[in-house]
């Protein structure tokens, strides 16, 4: 492959990183703190390509080391096309159905800190599930809280689900809450984002159901997808 082609590919790839970093679509793929890494990485790529394009070929010593074919570089087009032409959506119900449900580790011996006071305070789905499964202090019992997530219809039941990522979407793991007595949720399509005020059904998160809690919903409101679709 000619050096010019390599440089154009690098420009495109660096541009792709910069584009998703500045438009906010990077939140579909990586955690928020990655933004500056993407900007720096993309900028360095663009810079290296520009330096090489501007410099007259053959004027330096550094070129002799790379005389082998670099056909593999064509593959750099794949992420470029994926970002500019396809822009895959954030992970959603398909991932949830693929991998069941997971709850952060706990030993069932500890009491969680009490929830802050207030009616229907917002709680992350991950924390809701962890408290439901492990809290010996029963901090959720009788408390109405607000959960934000997307709808997953599975086996006749409606779930409110959310994915957590540690670093990027490859390591996403889902947490879900079964919504009981919620006919309005049953009519919603998969991946519809909702904000639900729910109360935990005590004792519903057990080992035999992978610690998936159930909750009764008092209100369900359809909302636009949040800017950051994941919990961290």
């Amino acid at each position, binding site marked *: 492959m000619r050096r010019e082609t390599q440089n154009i590919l690098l420009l495109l790839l660096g541009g792709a990183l910069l584009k998703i970093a500045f438009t906010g679509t990077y939140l579909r793929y990586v955690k928020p703190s990655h933004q500056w890494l993407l900007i720096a990485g993309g900028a360095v790529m663009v810079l*290296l390509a520009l330096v090489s394009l501007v410099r007259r070929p053959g004027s330096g010593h550094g070129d002799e*080391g*790379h005389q082998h074919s670099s*056909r593999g570089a064509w593959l750099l087009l794949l992420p470029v096309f994926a970002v500019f032409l396809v822009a895959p959506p954030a992970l959603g119900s398909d991932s949830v159905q693929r991998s069941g449900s997971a709850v952060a*580790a706990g030993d069932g011996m500890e009491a969680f800190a009490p929830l802050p006071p207030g009616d229907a305070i917002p709680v992350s789905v991950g924390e809701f599930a962890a408290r439901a499964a492990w809290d010996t202090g029963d901090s959720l019992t009788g408390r109405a809280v607000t959960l934000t997530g997307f709808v997953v219809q599975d086996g006749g039941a409606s779930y409110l689900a959310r994915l957590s990522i540690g*670093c990027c979407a490859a390591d996403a793991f889902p947490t879900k809450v079964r919504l009981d007595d919620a006919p309005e949720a049953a009519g919603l399509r998969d991946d519809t984002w909702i904000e639900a005020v729910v109360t935990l059904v005590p004792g519903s998160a057990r080992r035999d159901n992978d*610690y998936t809690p159930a909750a009764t919903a008092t209100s369900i409101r359809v909302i636009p997808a949040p800017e950051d679709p994941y919990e961290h």
Partner: protein
Amino acid sequence: MSTEVREPQAPGPTRRFRITSVEVLCVVLLLALVGQAAFVRILDVPAIRTGATVFVAVCIQALPFLVVGVLISGAIAAFVSADALRRLLPRRAALAVPVAGVAGVALPTCECAAVPVARRLIAQGAPSAVALTFLLAAPAVNPIVLVATAVAFPGEPAMVAARFLGSMATAVVMGWLWARFGKAQWFAEHALRRLPEPAGGRSRWRVFAETARADLVDAGGFLVIGGLAAAALNVLVPREWVNAVGDQIVLGILVMAVLAVLLALCSEADAFVAASLSALPLLPRLVFLVVGPAVDVKLISLQAGTFGRAFAVRFAPLTFVVAIACAVLAGIALGVGR
């Protein structure tokens, strides 16, 4: 500079127009733009959509770290002479290998960044055993990874210690094994070619920029292959494997070791995934954490591209076995899961 040696060349000088990779690229870009709608339609299947998202995620997560790696590689080529490197390292490989392991602690790079750095160290005359120890240690035992592990496993300090011990042992044992049995001819010829010593100040910066750029182009393609593999496996490997294992410890260790290779998670995040697999005992999850940063599909692809296939087919399986053994021994020694 003749990177186009394998380009299709037009036959005689009579033709005025030659088809080079630049023209090919233009046609490919044009076709992609025209066919965009068809593309998107093909991808509109839930499984493929999920795979595409994971693919993009793996690529853009790893690319900035690869950039860091090629910048360090370029800096070594331009500013660290082979003599200086030799003076820096203990002469005997048996001693230099643990030094390289400790150096890995101080340089928090992700596994993708470590590959071009290790290659450049070898090209500049460092013993290959030392560079490979660094390659295995840097992504696995650095402070960021250990803190992430501590956060993911609250109340299990033995997990952090065992991860450190298991990963460090893997790196050092692999270094010693390589010093004893490794052969230079397993490396691809291009991987070891040393760049000429730069002549002066300006020339050094040129070497720096050109080395970094060429390394990035080289390694980037293989990172993409690794990303494709990881995305496909992420969608295809059923997570029920994990649940089916239950409390069977030996089976659990094997399944988690294979999962670590197939899922290719970054070492900063794998602890959270391991923590979420609460159906399993701790020892198999420790194996997952030690194997993952040392060998996974993304790394195998990068190593095959950087060091050559003959190297990768020997190094990756051996690392896999050594990492499992070190993880199990470290886990038992430190009483993980008891």
